[in-house]
């Protein structure tokens, strides 16, 4: 019991992880343009898309543009995939999250293909999304994403995509 290292204070760990995530997300202009933010609980991320008039695709309904929905899902998939890889490296001590905060953003996975199913029209209110990484290999990854608004049980869109992983020479 003598050699065990005392764990770091919770707020120090939390602050470091949140700063790393924020740096990753805020480094991409298009994510900023759409206003997508990420909410973190442990290693689980929830993407949040706050509603804005500029996101409207059908002014008569009105409904969120299908392209916005697709972009929101793709952003969620890429960030969650990248975060899952980074998380393991941060936990293993192989990657210093301070590097992210200093603006050294690692290369993000590249989308190979992405299929979006539109299940319901996107209402003019905030939307949320979560991704599930079904396979993450050295070169390829496969991710499934679901987006919902008021009711988690009633997704308004889902997508699955394949991604090419960046070279991890960090």
């Amino acid at each position, binding site marked *: 019991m003598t050699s065990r290292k005392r764990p770091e204070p919770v707020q120090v760990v939390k602050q470091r992880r949140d700063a790393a995530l924020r740096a990753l997300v805020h*480094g*991409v*202009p*298009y*994510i*900023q*343009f*759409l206003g997508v933010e990420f909410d973190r609980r442990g290693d689980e991320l929830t993407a949040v898309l706050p509603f804005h*008039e*500029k*996101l*409207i*695709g*059908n*002014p*008569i*309904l009105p409904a969120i*543009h*299908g*392209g*916005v929905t*697709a*972009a*929101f899902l*793709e*952003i969620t998939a890429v960030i969650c995939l990248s975060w899952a890889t980074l998380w393991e490296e941060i936990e293993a001590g192989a990657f210093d999250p301070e590097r992210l905060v200093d603006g050294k*953003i690692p*290369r*993000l996975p*590249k*989308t*190979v*293909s*992405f*299929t*979006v*199913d*539109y299940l319901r*029209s996107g209402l003019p209110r905030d939307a949320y999304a979560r991704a599930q990484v079904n396979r993450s290999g050295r070169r390829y990854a496969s991710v499934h994403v679901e987006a919902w608004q008021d009711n988690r049980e009633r997704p308004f869109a889902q997508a699955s995509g394949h991604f090419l992983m960046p070279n991890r020479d960090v």
Partner: protein
Amino acid sequence: MDKTKIARQFITAIPHARELGMFLDHLTDGIAVMSMPYDERFVGDPATGVIHGGAVFALLDTCSGAAVMSHARSPGGTATIDLRIDYMRAATPGQRIRARAECYHVTRNVAFVRATATDDDDDLPVATASGSFTVEGLA
């Protein structure tokens, strides 16, 4: 009023299409050509300045919808059921992205579309897409 004109009015009134600077270059029976200027706000990879795939998706989706609306057998409105995109290469930073969509079949309930996105180099597309859309009357 003819169908192309209605489709044109609808497409140019979409807030998000305007926000992305989309321009409807050409629209005839079932074929639409739209383009979008390079904009630093739409960058997906800050290291290279390459446009985010999501912005290309938005252009292809809008262009595909326009193609459906302009088809002779489409009564008016439409919504995307599903759309698949394959990204062949990164769009060259600084260049305009152009999409061409063709609605090649319309049934009573479903319209089928394929589309291609290119930059200044027409030989190799940036992305290709295929999808299905609903067939609806004008709201």
